[in-house]
């Protein structure tokens, strides 16, 4: 590196004394080539600084944003979308594309074949052998659910949610015959006229949400309208017998129609409760796993200020909630904590030493307001400390093991505004540290040899510089719904099961149909 380059780098780092700054700036005014060199070096230095910021978590910045956060927030919404697009598309990738050394593109996903309806979610659902959908596809025919709860979406957008036992016949996308059991239907405006046929009657929707119940033995049926309006007709006839409005109900018995009190809407299953049910079953099982180090299910206890460790066994790692607020999680009725302000965190202490661990969490990130966004970090960055964080620059979830690692990026990137499953699997003996986003490999690292992990005092959702260093608070901005840490490594199949059992619904994450299991 020649003297001039060294001089320019020292200038860029503010390391020159004032007299030499004045001297150099005078030269820069006269010398176009010197200005060019300075600009080239400024590009490289800036890139190095960005890179280093994502490599290391422990250094506070020399200063925080120079204007009030509220002003930054004014444009954050606009930037957020663009960040998602750009941060993942690093200059490295752009360079490779420019020089035509492009990585092999992922194979195009095949569209799901057309069907009359699709199973979009289920909890412990089992269909009778002779009356089951083909995988997740419903065509015209008879179906019988013998266990669990299921959510079917017809191709015209009609949502039907039902729990066992139920038997019905799907005639076409506008007509379903309910033979026995009960269901909830939500009909979008474009499917107005959708009809549920019951013994002797047709319930024709006029754009609404309603519940229908049929007792096959007594041939008694009920209609409960939760929203909008439903028209009641004699089977196969055009004339309207009655119009049932929001908050009204009727029952049909022996051919006669009678008004009755509308049932509690909860008597009919809701789509949102299916994922919640599935998760509850899984959660009760996993908390008994003897390899658990801690399990925060994010179910609010009486105090509201502690985050209970629900793992069964001794050595509980209770969290202390600092300012973070309880809000709705992945499903209605399920809680999460919102981290939205500086100082929002959960403090905890992970005792002892570890050679292996697996971390898993469900998060919904609202924005990326800083370069490194803590998820769960040791308070310091001493040897053996662990930092699990999201890097804005590469848009990836990463596990940092002090004192540093060799890093390889993989395709999986963070997504804002939707529930995302994060996982980190670390084996210090094998020198492997991998992170996963929605089950896909995100970052792979080779931690240094001879290090044993000792996370110690940690913060969830925030990181603050150690004492003596000018503080710079870094905070996760969004919701965290679940955090589990095992003392062992989980393989990729086990990680996928975490997602299958915890995803908000089967259409998650891209509103594309995902295959069950």
């Amino acid at each position: 590196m020649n003297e001039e380059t060294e001089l320019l780098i020292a200038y860029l780092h503010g390391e020159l004394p004032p007299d030499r700054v004045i001297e150099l700036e005078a030269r820069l005014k006269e010398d176009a080539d010197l200005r060019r060199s300075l600009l080239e070096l400024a590009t490289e230095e800036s890139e190095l600084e960005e890179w280093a910021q994502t490599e290391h978590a422990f250094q506070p910045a020399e200063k925080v944003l120079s204007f009030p956060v509220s002003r930054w927030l004014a444009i954050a919404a606009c930037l957020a979308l663009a960040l998602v697009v750009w941060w993942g598309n690093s200059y490295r990738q752009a360079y490779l594309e420019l020089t035509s050394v492009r990585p092999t593109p992922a194979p195009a996903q095949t569209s799901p074949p057309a069907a009359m309806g699709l199973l979009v979610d289920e909890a412990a659902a089992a269909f009778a052998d002779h009356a089951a959908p083909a995988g997740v596809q419903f065509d015209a025919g008879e179906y019988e659910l013998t266990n669990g709860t299921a959510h079917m979406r017809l191709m015209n957008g009609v949502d039907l949610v039902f729990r066992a036992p139920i038997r019905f016949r799907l005639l076409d996308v506008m007509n379903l015959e309910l033979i026995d059991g009960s269901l909830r239907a939500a009909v979008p405006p474009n499917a107005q006229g959708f009809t549920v046929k019951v013994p002797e009657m047709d319930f024709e929707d006029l754009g609404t949400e309603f519940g229908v119940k049929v007792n096959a033995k007594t041939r008694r049926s009920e209609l409960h309208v939760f929203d909008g309006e439903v028209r009641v007709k004699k089977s196969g006839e055009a004339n309207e017998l009655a119009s049932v409005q929001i908050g009204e109900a009727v029952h049909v018995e022996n051919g006669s129609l009678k008004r009755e009190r509308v049932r509690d809407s909860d008597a009919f299953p809701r789509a949102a409760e299916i994922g919640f049910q599935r998760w509850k079953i899984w959660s009760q099982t996993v908390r008994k796993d003897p390899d658990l180090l801690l399990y925060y299910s994010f179910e609010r206890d009486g105090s509201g200020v502690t985050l209970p460790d629900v793992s069964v066994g001794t050595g509980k790692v209770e969290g202390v909630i600092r300012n973070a607020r309880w809000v709705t999680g992945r499903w209605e009725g399920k809680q999460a904590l919102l981290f939205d302000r500086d100082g929002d965190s959960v403090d905890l202490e992970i005792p002892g030493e570890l050679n292996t661990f697996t971390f898993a969490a469900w998060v919904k990130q609202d924005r990326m307001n800083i370069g490194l966004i803590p998820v769960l970090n040791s308070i310091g960055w001493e040897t053996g400390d662990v930092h699990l964080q999201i890097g804005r620059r590469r848009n990836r979830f990463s596990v940092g093991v002090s004192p540093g690692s060799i890093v390889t990026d993989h395709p999986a990137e963070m997504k804002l505004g939707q529930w995302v499953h994060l996982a980190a699997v670390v084996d210090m003996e094998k020198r492997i540290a991998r992170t996963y986003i929605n089950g896909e490999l995100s970052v792979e690292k080779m931690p240094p040899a001879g290090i044993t992990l000792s996370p110690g005092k940690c913060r969830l959702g925030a990181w603050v510089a150690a004492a003596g260093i000018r503080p710079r608070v870094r905070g996760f901005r969004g919701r965290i719904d679940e955090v589990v840490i095992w003392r062992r490594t989980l393989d990729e199949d086990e990680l996928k099961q975490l997602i299958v059992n915890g995803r908000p619904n089967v259409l998650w994450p891209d509103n594309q149909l995902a295959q069950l299991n």
Partner: protein
Amino acid sequence: MDEPTEQFDEATIASMLIAQRAAIMAYIRACLHNHADSEDVFQEVSLVAVRSAAKLRDRKGFVPWVREISRRLILEHRRKSGRMTPLDPELVALMADTAAEVEAETPAKVRAGALQLCLEALPEDQRSMLSLRYADRRMAVEDIAKRFGKSVQATYAILKRSRQLLRSCVTKKLQHDGLA
């Protein structure tokens, strides 16, 4: 006054800002003396650009337009900063012209991409040391030396050699790929 040929909303401006971040940052960084100040000014520039979206006349004029916003804010920042000497407005304007020329020849994002590839080729120890030296709060060479069990002098030499390697790697790569 010419009528704008295109209409730009805030989201479009935001995405253009991010796509051109390297070019804008190169100019800002060249006029300031540390990363944090440059980040702050970049954010100020972003804020002004997003709020003035209606003033942008066409896509081609985006970088010069943002560079002009940057020029004003750089001068303001240097004037207000107690740590830096005020910068000659003429030099800031000359830097803007030179930045446009450099960008036309080798876009900053191409140079940044080459640097990322060169970083990957650097030995692990050298990369770790560089990352400590370049992180938000630059670690003192003495502390890096302690961490790696080396003398201060040897650490200085390694850091210097690493930066030198990166510099020559970027230059060679750009030349080899016909991008400079």
